[in-house]
């Protein structure tokens, strides 16, 4: 087995891993990272991770088993990335008018760490396939085939659920009873100033989020999850909130009887369809997912 074959294994493996990282990095509703340097950081790390994964295969074949321990080193690096992402987002959070919230930051940081492992695994498996191809009659294109397969797997399995998957979102009406703002039959909060009330009725929007089952109800019960919805909606539609106008903070309140959630927001763009769409596309936090229906008591309680 010549040096060239090893090189082929490493190159195809690394390429597959880096491509996976690129596909996973497309800007989504998290709106992060939204700047070129962020891309560079994550693409480079993805490249390093995939190189490590790919190199492991020829290393083992050359009976250099210690090379495998480098993977452990890489794992440590990746958890450092998670900390670094968390720190960055936390310091940005201070000046954010509609906060992401701790849960969301944790979720994003964890995702970034997890994706690097995924990239490493994808590169490793592709490299193994290439090696197998080279050694048999199938040839090295087997590696490319498996690489593409890994890419598709990463895309389908690593896309989390969105609110639209677990809830239905319907337009609702804003109204005042005295000083209390209501979204349909759910009270939101007390607005003291008459001019503000008129402004809210004129420019505000409200929707009701109906959970599809008890699992969904438990998930949107989570305050972190509700924060994510408020943040997403404000990023996509804009928000009239400013530091001296807390009245226009987007708010989500629960209906105590049914568990449905009302959302009130003051968007820069008053567009109901866009609002419903952005609520639907809001990612469901991994940490917010609850599954009471998987437990016996939960199923019994649901009857």
């Amino acid at each position, binding site marked *: 087995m010549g040096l060239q074959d090893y090189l082929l294994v490493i190159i195809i493996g690394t390429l597959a891993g880096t491509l996976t990282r690129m596909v996973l990095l497309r800007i989504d509703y998290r709106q992060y990272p939204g700047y070129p340097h962020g891309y560079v950081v994550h693409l480079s790390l993805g490249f390093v991770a995939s190189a490590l994964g790919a190199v492991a295969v020829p290393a083992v074949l050359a009976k250099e088993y210690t090379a495998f321990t480098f993977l452990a080193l890489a794992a440590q690096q990746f958890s450092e990335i998670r900390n670094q992402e968390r720190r960055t987002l936390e310091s940005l959070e201070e000046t954010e008018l509609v906060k992401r919230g701790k849960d969301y930051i944790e979720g994003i940081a964890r995702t970034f760490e997890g994706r690097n492992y995924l990239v490493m695994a994808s590169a490793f498996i592709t490299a193994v396939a290439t090696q197998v191809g080279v050694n048999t009659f199938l040839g090295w294109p087997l590696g490319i085939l498996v690489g593409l397969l890994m890419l598709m797997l990463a895309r389908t399995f690593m896309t989390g659920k969105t609110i639209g998957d677990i809830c239905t979102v319907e337009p609702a009406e804003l109204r005042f009873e005295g*000083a209390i703002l209501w979204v349909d039959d759910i009270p939101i909060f007390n*607005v*003291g*100033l008459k*001019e503000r009330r008129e402004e809210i009725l004129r420019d505000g929007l409200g929707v009701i989020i109906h959970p599809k089952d008890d699992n969904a109800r438990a998930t949107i019960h989570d305050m972190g999850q509700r924060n994510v919805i408020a943040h997403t909606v404000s990023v996509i539609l804009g928000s009239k909130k400013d*530091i*001296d106008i*807390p*009245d226009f903070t987007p708010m989500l309140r629960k209906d105590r009887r049914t568990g449905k959630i009302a959302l009130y927001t003051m968007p820069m763009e008053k567009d109901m369809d866009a609002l419903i769409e952005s609520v639907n596309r809001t990612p469901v936090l991994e940490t917010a997912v609850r599954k009471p229906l998987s437990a016996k008591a939960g199923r019994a309680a649901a009857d």
Partner: protein
Amino acid sequence: MSKKRIFAAVTSNRETVNGGVPIFYADNEKQKSKIAATLANIADGMVHELDNGVMIIVEH
């Protein structure tokens, strides 16, 4: 969760509020909301209205 604090109360009826927080008296309804709006603006707080017409400014 953030701490909430009543920053001030504004009223046009002297009998409804006393003690505790800074109280601002207004001559009429119009003046009352104006004072409340100004105070809220200064304190980055929010104006709430109670049933008896007293307005409170709360820092959220």
